[in-house]
C-alpha cells in the first residue's frame, strides 16, 4: 500500500495555485488592451486567479497545522500505476493500430493484472467483450471506432 500525508499534497497544491497566479499574470501581460468600455481579455482570468491565489495560500498555510492531517492511501498502488500506463498506451496507439487488434490485448492485460481468471479464460473473455462492443457500437449505433491498420 502506498500512503502519504494529505497535508504534503495540500502544501504542494497551494504552491501550485500561487505559481498559477504568477503564470496567469505573466502570460496575460501580452494580451491586447481592450477598446474603450470593453472587458479586456485579461480581466476575468486575473480576477479568478487572484481569488485562487488567496485560497491556495490558505490551503498551503493550513497544511502546516499538524492536527488537520489525514493520510492519502492507495491500495495496490503499483497496479493502479500500471493500469494508468497501460491505458495511456492503449489510448494513444488506438488510432494507429486499430480497435479490433488493440482492445483484446488491453482487456487481457488488465484482467491478468487484476487476477480475473486463468490466462485462457482471460483471453476468451477479452475477445468476446471486444466482439460485443464492436457489434453494439459499430454495427448497431454506427459509432466510428478507430480502424487502424486492418481498415475495419
Amino acid at each position, binding site marked *: 500500500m502506498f500512503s502519504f500525508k*494529505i497535508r504534503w*499534497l*495540500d502544501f504542494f*497544491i497551494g504552491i501550485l*495555485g500561487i505559481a*498559477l497566479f504568477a503564470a*496567469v499574470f505573466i*502570460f*496575460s501581460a501580452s*494580451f*491586447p488592451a481592450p477598446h*474603450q*468600455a*470593453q*472587458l*479586456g*481579455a485579461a480581466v*476575468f*482570468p486575473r480576477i*479568478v*486567479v487572484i481569488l*485562487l491565489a488567496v*485560497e491556495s495560500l*490558505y*490551503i498551503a498555510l493550513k497544511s502546516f497545522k499538524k492536527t488537520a492531517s*489525514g493520510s*492519502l*492511501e*492507495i*491500495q*495496490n*498502488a503499483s*497496479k*493502479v500505476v500500471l*493500469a*494508468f500506463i497501460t*491505458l495511456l498506451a*492503449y*489510448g*494513444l496507439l*488506438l*488510432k494507429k493500430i486499430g*480497435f479490433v487488434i488493440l*482492445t483484446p490485448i*488491453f*482487456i487481457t492485460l*488488465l*484482467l491478468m*493484472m*487484476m*487476477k*480475473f481468471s486463468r490466462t485462457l479464460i482471460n483471453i476468451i*473473455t477479452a475477445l468476446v*467483450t471486444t466482439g460485443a*462492443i464492436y457489434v453494439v*457500437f459499430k454495427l448497431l449505433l454506427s*459509432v*466510428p*471506432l*478507430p480502424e487502424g491498420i486492418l481498415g475495419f
Partner: protein
Amino acid sequence: MISYLFTGFGNLIQSGSILALFIGVFLGIVIGALPGLTATMGIALLIPFTYGMDPAFALSLMVGIFAGGIYGGSISAILLRTPGTPAAGATVLDGYPLAQKGQAGKALAVSTIASALGGLIGALILTFLAPQIAKIAVLFGPPEYVLLGVYGLSMISYVAGKSMSKGIFMGLLGILISTIGIDPISGFPRFTFGQLNLLNGLSLLPVLIGLFAAAQAFEGVEKFNEPQSPQAKITRIGLSGKEFFRILPHIVKSAFIGTFVGAVPGTGTDIAAFLSYGEAKRSSKNGSEFGTGVIEGVAAPESGNNACVNGAMIPMFTLGIPGEAATAVMLGGLMLLGLQPGPLLFRDNPQVIYTVFASTITSNILILVLGLFGARFFAKVLQLPAKLITTLIFVLAIIGSYAMRNNAFDVSVTIIAGFVGFILAKADYPVPPLLLGLILGPLVEANLGRTVIISEGNYSIFFTRPLCWLFWALILYTVISNISKSRKASKQPSQEAHNGSKA
C-alpha cells in the same frame, strides 16, 4: 401548455424516443444497481454516442439513465447493504434490515413504488413549474446572468464535501481552466500556447468522461481484491394495500422535499434522500423503530431522491444552471446536441422540451414496471464480476472520448483527468465544484463582457436593476449560511460524514 404536453407525449411515441427512454431506464437501473457506478457516470459515458441523434431521442435516453440510476441504487442498498449510488445511502438504513428479516421482496416493492410515485410527482411539478420560471427568466439581461452564475458558483460550498476551502479551490480552478481558448469578447486566443487543440478551450466532454468514468475505474483497479458482498435472498415481491396506505403520506411529503431540494442549485439526490428520511422519522408514529427495518424508512428516501432527479432539471432547463453533478453532465450533453439551455429553449424548441417532460413522466411508469417484474433479473446483474466491469468502463471511456473528434489529444485528456480525479478525490479535493466552475465560468465571463458593453463600463448597473437585487440577496444568504454551516461543522467534525462529492 397542456396541448404542448400532449404533443410531447405524441412525439415521444411517434419519434421512437420512448424506446430510448426504455433503454435508458433499463441501463440506468443496471448502472445504478452496480456499486461504484453512478447515474452521472452513465450519462457521461453515453453523451459522445448521442452526437448526431435527434435531441428528443438523446435527451430521453439521458433522462431514463438518470431516473433509472437513482432508483437502481436502492436494489444493492437493500440486497447488499451497499448503496449502488450515494443517493441510496439512506435506503440502506431500513432496506437492509428488512432484507435480513426475510422481507427483501417487500423492501424492493416499497422502493420501486416509492421511487415511481415520488418521481412522478417531481416530474409533474417540473412540467408545470419550469415554463413559469422560464417566463421570468426571459426577462434576464446580461447583468442578471452574471449574478445568476455567481449564485450558482456560491453554491460550490454545498457540493464541496469535507473541506470547503478545497471545494472553492476546485471551483476556481474550473473557472480558470474555462478561460483557456478564444476570449468570448475580443476573440483573442488565451493560454493556448500555439496548440490548435486548445483554441476552443479544453473540451468539456473528455474531461467529464475522465473525471466521472475513468476515475471510477481506477478505483476499481485499486480495490480489485476486495470480495464482493454476499446477497440477501429475494422473497415474494409485493406489499399489501394496508401497507401501501401507510407509506403513501411519506411518499407524497418526501416527493415535495426532494423536488425542492433538487431545484436549489448545489444540492443533490443524496441530500434529498437523507432529508426525506429524517423528516419521515421525525413525523412518523413509529419513529423510534426507524433503522430496524420499517417500510416508511425505505419509502421516504426513495421517493425523495427520485423526485429530486426532476427537481434538479428545473434550474438546468430554465436557467442553464446545473444543480449537481448529473445535471451538469447532462447540460454538457445538451450543448453538444446544439441546444442552448435556458429560457429561450422554451421559446425556440418547445417540441423538444415537452417531449422531455413527457419522458420524465413516463420514466416513472417504466421504473414501476421494470422494478416490479425485473427485480430478480437486476439482482442477478449484481453478481457480474466487478473486474470485468472495471475493464469495460476503461474501454468505453476511451472510445467515447475518441468518438467525438477522433483525436488522440482528447483521449489523453480523458486518461489524465481520470487519474488526477482519482488521486484528488482521495485527498478530499471534490470533483463536482470543478465541473460547476467549468460550466458556469464562461457564462459569467461572456455576460460580464456584455454587461460592460451595454453599461459603457459602469458597474453600478449591478445595483440599479430590481432582479439583480434578488440575486444579491440569494448570494448573500448562501454565503452567510455556508459560513455558519462550516463553523458548526468544524465544531463537530464527525457530522460531515456524508457529502455530495460523489453524487
